C-alpha cells in the first residue's frame, strides 16, 4: 500500500454541515476514487474549525492550503488540480479585504492568529472518532498524572492556582466546587456534565462535544477520581444528535483502552459514564432542574441551598460543570495552574470561547484570552459589521444577558466588567446587531423566549414575565404609554429580586439593559409611534416614491397580498391596510423607489 501523501481535513462542524459539507465530501472522495487516489490521500472529518462563515472548509496538508465555501460542483476540481497536478485552485482560496488571495489564512488572519486555543485545542485538528489522535495530542496524560503522580488535593491546588471559573454562565470558581464536593460526606457521589447548551447563539459546547469528545471523558474521569464518584452523566440536548453519536463512540473507545470503566489503567479506581438526552427545556440548563431531569422528572429547579455539592442527584453529593469548563481541565493539569492563569486578567483568568453571530463579517467560534476588548473581538477578529452598516449593540449572555451599546465597545471582557454593564459573559454567545435591529423588538424576542421556557413553578417568573411581554407588545404596536415604561422597569426589578432560580432572576435582564442604553428608542415608540430601525410592523409603512417609480410593475407582481396597485408606466401605490411589511417589493425594486418609513 502506498504511503499517504496528502491529508485532507474537512470541517464537519454544525455550520459547515448546514452549508453542504456532506455532499462536498462525497464528491471529493468519489473523485479521488476515479483517479485511484483513495490510498494516497487521507480524508478526515474534523470538528468545527471556527471560521463558520467560510464553510464548507477543506485544508490540504502538508502544504496547509485552505479552501473555503466549496460546493459539490467544484470539490472535484480540488482533486483534479491540487492533488493531481499540484496547482492551487485560486478561485476557492480566501480572498482578503484588498482582493488579495490567501493560501494559508490560518497563519495570517487575525481571526486565527489572535486566538489562544485551550478548550478548543483539538477542534479542527484531529479526527474526533480517533482516540489515538487524541492521545497523540497529549490526551489522557492528565488522567495518568492524577492516577499515578499527584494526589487529589494537588489537583484542587492546581485548579485553585489556575483561577478557572465555570464557563457555563455563573462564573463560580471551579476549584471551590470540586473542593466542596470532595469534602461532602457520602459514599455515593456523582459527576455531571451540563451539555444542555440552551442559550440561543452559543454553540461552543456542541463544537467541543462533536470535535473533541475525549476531552470531556478525560476531564470527568479526573473529576470523579478527585471527588470520589463512581458514576457520571452527560446531559446533552436532543437538538445535538451528532454530539451524542460522537460522545457515545468516544466513551466506547475509552472503555476499550482502559480509560473508563472498571479498574481504570489497572488501578482500583472505577468510573463510568452515561449519556442522558434532554427533551427541549431551556430551564434544564439550571443545575438543579437538570438534576431533576436526569432523575426522569419534570425539569423544575429546586430551592438552593442545599447545593448539589451536598445534595444533588438522588440527594447525593454531585459535581456539575459545563462542557467548556471540563474541556479546560486536562491541559491545566498537564501544564499547571500558573500556565493557565498567565492568560487573561485579574479576576478573569484563562481563555473564553465566544460564538460570534448575527451581523458580523467573520461569524464562528473563537477562543481568546479574557480581558480582550469588545472592539478587538468584534472588529479585528470578527471583521466588523458587513454591508457598510453601523454597529448598534452586542448582545451577550442570551436570555439572561443584555445589550452593550457601541459607545462601550472599548470595555475589556471580564466577569466584573460585564456585570457593571448590566449583562453577563454567560456561555459566550455574542450576537452582533446593526442599525436594522430594534432594541425594543430584541427585548420582546427574549421575553417571548423566557415566557415560553419558564417552568411555571414560581409566580414572579411565570406570571411576571408574561405581563412584561404584554407591555412590550403594547409598546411595539404603538399602544404603549410612558407609564408602561416605568411599570416595565419596576416589574422587571421585582421579578429579578423574587424569582426562585437563575432563569427568573435574569429573565428581565434583556429589557432592563436595553432600557438603560436605548431609552430614547423606547420613548420614541411610545411618544412618537416611531421605530428607529423600522422593524416594528405597526409603526412602519412601506411607501413608493412617486418621483422615482417608473411603473415597471415588478413590485406588484411579487407582493404576496396584492397590496400594490397601479398600471404600467405610472407610479404605483401601496395600500397600508393590506400591506404586511414583508419587504418583498423592496428587494425587487431596481429604481430605489420603495422605502420603509416610521411613522
Amino acid at each position: 500500500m502506498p504511503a499517504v501523501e496528502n491529508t485532507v481535513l474537512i470541517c464537519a462542524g454544525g455550520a459547515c454541515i448546514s452549508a453542504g459539507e456532506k455532499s462536498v465530501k462525497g464528491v471529493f472522495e468519489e473523485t479521488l476514487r476515479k483517479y485511484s487516489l483513495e490510498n494516497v490521500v487521507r480524508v478526515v472529518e474534523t470538528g468545527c474549525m471556527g471560521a463558520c462563515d467560510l464553510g464548507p472548509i477543506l485544508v490540504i496538508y502538508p502544504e496547509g492550503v485552505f479552501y473555503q465555501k466549496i460546493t459539490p460542483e467544484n470539490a472535484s476540481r480540488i482533486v483534479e488540480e491540487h492533488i493531481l497536478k499540484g496547482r492551487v485552485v485560486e478561485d476557492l482560496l480566501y480572498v482578503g479585504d484588498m482582493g488579495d488571495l490567501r493560501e494559508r489564512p490560518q497563519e495570517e488572519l487575525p481571526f486565527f492568529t489572535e486566538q489562544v486555543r485551550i478548550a478548543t485545542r483539538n477542534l479542527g485538528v484531529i479526527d474526533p472518532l480517533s482516540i489515538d489522535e487524541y492521545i497523540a495530542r497529549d490526551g489522557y496524560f492528565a488522567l495518568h498524572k492524577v492516577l499515578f503522580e499527584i494526589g487529589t488535593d494537588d489537583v484542587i491546588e492546581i485548579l485553585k492556582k489556575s483561577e478557572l471559573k465555570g464557563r457555563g454562565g455563573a462564573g463560580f470558581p471551579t476549584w471551590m466546587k470540586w473542593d466542596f464536593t470532595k469534602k461532602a460526606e457520602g459514599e455515593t457521589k456523582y459527576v455531571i456534565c451540563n451539555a444542555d447548551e440552551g442559550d440561543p447563539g452559543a454553540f461552543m459546547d456542541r463544537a467541543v462535544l462533536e470535535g473533541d469528545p475525549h476531552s470531556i471523558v478525560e476531564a470527568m474521569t479526573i473529576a470523579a477520581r478527585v471527588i470520589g464518584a463512581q458514576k457520571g452523566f452527560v446531559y446533552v440536548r436532543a437538538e445535538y444528535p451528532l454530539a451524542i453519536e460522537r460522545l457515545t463512540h468516544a466513551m466506547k473507545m475509552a472503555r476499550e483502552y482502559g480509560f473508563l470503566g472498571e479498574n481504570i489503567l489497572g488501578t482500583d479506581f472505577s468510573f463510568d459514564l452515561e449519556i442522558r438526552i434532554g427533551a427541549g427545556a431551556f430551564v434544564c440548563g439550571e443545575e438543579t432542574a437538570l438534576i431533576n431531569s436526569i432523575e426522569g422528572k419534570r425539569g423544575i429547579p429546586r430551592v438552593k441551598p442545599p447545593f448539589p455539592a451536598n445534595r444533588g442527584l438522588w440527594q447525593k453529593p454531585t459535581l456539575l460543570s459545563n462542557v467548556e469548563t471540563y474541556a479546560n481541565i486536562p491541559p491545566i493539569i498537564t501544564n499547571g495552574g500558573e500556565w493557565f492563569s498567565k492568560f487573561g486578567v485579574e479576576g478573569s483568568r484563562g481563555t473564553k470561547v465566544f460564538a460570534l453571530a448575527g451581523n458580523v463579517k467573520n461569524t464562528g467560534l473563537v477562543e481568546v484570552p479574557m480581558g480582550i476588548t469588545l472592539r478587538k473581538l468584534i472588529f479585528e477578529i470578527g471583521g466588523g459589521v458587513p454591508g457598510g452598516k453601523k454597529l448598534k449593540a452586542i448582545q451577550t449572555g442570551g436570555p439572561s444577558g443584555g445589550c452593550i451599546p457601541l459607545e462601550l465597545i472599548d470595555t475589556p471582557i471580564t466577569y466584573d466588567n460585564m456585570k457593571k454593564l448590566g449583562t453577563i459573559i454567560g456561555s459566550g454567545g455574542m450576537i452582533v446587531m446593526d442599525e436594522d435591529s430594534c432594541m425594543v423588538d430584541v427585548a420582546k424576542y427574549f421575553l417571548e423566549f423566557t415566557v415560553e421556557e419558564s417552568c411555571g413553578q414560581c409566580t414572579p417568573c411565570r406570571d411576571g414575565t408574561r405581563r412584561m411581554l404584554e407591555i412590550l407588545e403594547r409598546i411595539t404596536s404603538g399602544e404603549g404609554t410612558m407609564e408602561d415604561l416605568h411599570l416595565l422597569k419596576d416589574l422587571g426589578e421585582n421579578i429579578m429580586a423574587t424569582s426562585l432560580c437563575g432563569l427568573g432572576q435574569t429573565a428581565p435582564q434583556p429589557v432592563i439593559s436595553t432600557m438603560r442604553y436605548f431609552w430614547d428608542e423606547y420613548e420614541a415608540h411610545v411618544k412618537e409611534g416611531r421605530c428607529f430601525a423600522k422593524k416594528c410592523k405597526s409603526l412602519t409603512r412601506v411607501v413608493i416614491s412617486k418621483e422615482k417609480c417608473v411603473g415597471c410593475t415588478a413590485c406588484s407582481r411579487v407582493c404576496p397580498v396584492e397590496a400594490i396597485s397601479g398600471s404600467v408606466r405610472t407610479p404605483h401605490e401601496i395600500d397600508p391596510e393590506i400591506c404586511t411589511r414583508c419587504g418583498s417589493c423592496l428587494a425587487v425594486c431596481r429604481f430605489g423607489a420603495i422605502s420603509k418609513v416610521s411613522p
Partner: protein
Amino acid sequence: MSLVNCPDCQRLYKELDEYIDSVKGNTGVLINVLHKAQEIFGYLSEELQQHVSEKLDIPLSQVYGVVTFYNFFSMKPKGKNQIKVCLGTACYVKGADKILERLRDELNVEMNEPTSDGLFSIHAVRCLGACSMAPVVLIGEDDYYGRVSPDEVSKILDKYRRAE
C-alpha cells in the same frame, strides 16, 4: 391508536417493550423511554402514555406531567417531513420570522399541525447551533439548509414533494 385498527402497532409495542425491559432496572429512565416511544410511534398518544405508565409502574399523572413539560415530546402526530425553523437569536436577527411566515403561507397550515396530505409540519425550534449559517432550516434529522431566503422556500419544499 387502538390495536384493532393498527396491525403495525403490535409490532411497535413489542419493540418498545423490549427497550423498556432492557433499561427497567435503572433509575430515572422515564425520559429515555419516552424518547424511544416517540421515535417508534412518532408521537405520544394517551394510550401510549398509559402503556408506559403501566410498564414502568409510574403513575400516569407523572408520565403526562413529563410529556407536557418538555417541548420535544408531542401528543399530536407530526408531518412526514418535519420542518424545523431555528428561532435562535442569530437566525431571528437574520430574518427567521420571514421564513416561518412564508412556510405557513406556502403550506397553508398552523404551527405543529400536519398538512392535509400529511407530508409536512412546521415547528419552531430553539437554537440549532449553526448560527453562522443563519437563518437555518432543518428538515427531518439530517437535511440542513443554511442562509435560507424566503424565496427559496418553495424550491426546498418541491424537493420533498417530488420525492413522493
